[in-house]
């Protein structure tokens, strides 16, 4: 199951802007999406904007 482009993009941004490792960044975003009832494979840029 491939992650959406929006998810990959925001994870890359979080990784480069903070001291988070790749795994930490992806895990953090996944947790945020889960608490919003969203999934990494289908989340859209508009939804990411609201959640993060």
């Amino acid at each position: 199951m491939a992650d959406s482009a929006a998810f990959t993009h925001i994870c890359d941004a979080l990784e480069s802007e903070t001291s988070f490792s790749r795994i930490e960044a992806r895990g953090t975003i996944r947790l945020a999406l889960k608490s919003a009832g969203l999934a990494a494979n289908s989340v859209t840029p508009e939804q990411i904007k609201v959640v993060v």
Partner: protein
Amino acid sequence: MVTLAGSLYLLSTAVFSVLAIVIGVRLITLSRRTQRVPERSLGLGFIGTAGLGYGLLMFAMIGKRAAGWDDAPSYYSWLLMLGWVFHNLGVLFMLDFVHRVFRPDEGWARTLKYTMGLVLWVGWLADMSTGGLAATRPSHFYWVAFAVIGTYPLWTAVEAYRYWGLMRKRVALGLADPLVANRFLLWTIASMTTVASIWLVEVPTFLGYERMSSAAEQITSITMLCTAAFGIATICTYWLTFFPPAWYQARFRAPAASETGS
């Protein structure tokens, strides 16, 4: 009591069949416009299971019973068989809908869909080829098919309930329409009442009574009344899901409107 229960049962099944066809046609029309497969699968599922399936089965059962069951013309048996074919095809489309909408990328869901479809058809064909249509007691093959018929709406119910939870979280963030989120709860309720109807019809058989026997009349009248009640609940729930009246829609629009106003 028996007559009242039978009449209610027939009425609720008839209304259910007609509503299923109306919803099915509407969904297929929508799928032709949007070129989307899930709507088509659900539409064909409704028409197959509840519309043509239950409709033909009920019509053939009534006709065959009125004609003395064993002495009834053979075309009633053919109609019964045709009703089952439509019903079973409808179940396949329903399974396809659940897979495509809730678990499109999951391999296990695809496997489950095909396995359930295969078990249903193998069980039903084996039951038919061993005289299941005329049998007073269901064969083992009948229960193989029933294992799918009695459980496929449970899959729908579980997935819809899970998705309702996700949608509620999205609604809290303004990422989803409350009315659309509520549809998943309604869908869960409708699936559960469908499960209840399917299992209740089989209660006399579970208790060891022969089909259409006079000894089973009392228990059958009770189960028919309960099945009718669940059938009516299913009809009402589907109505709210697919044709929500203005007052029902207003329940979900009102809080947002008042917030905007203040």
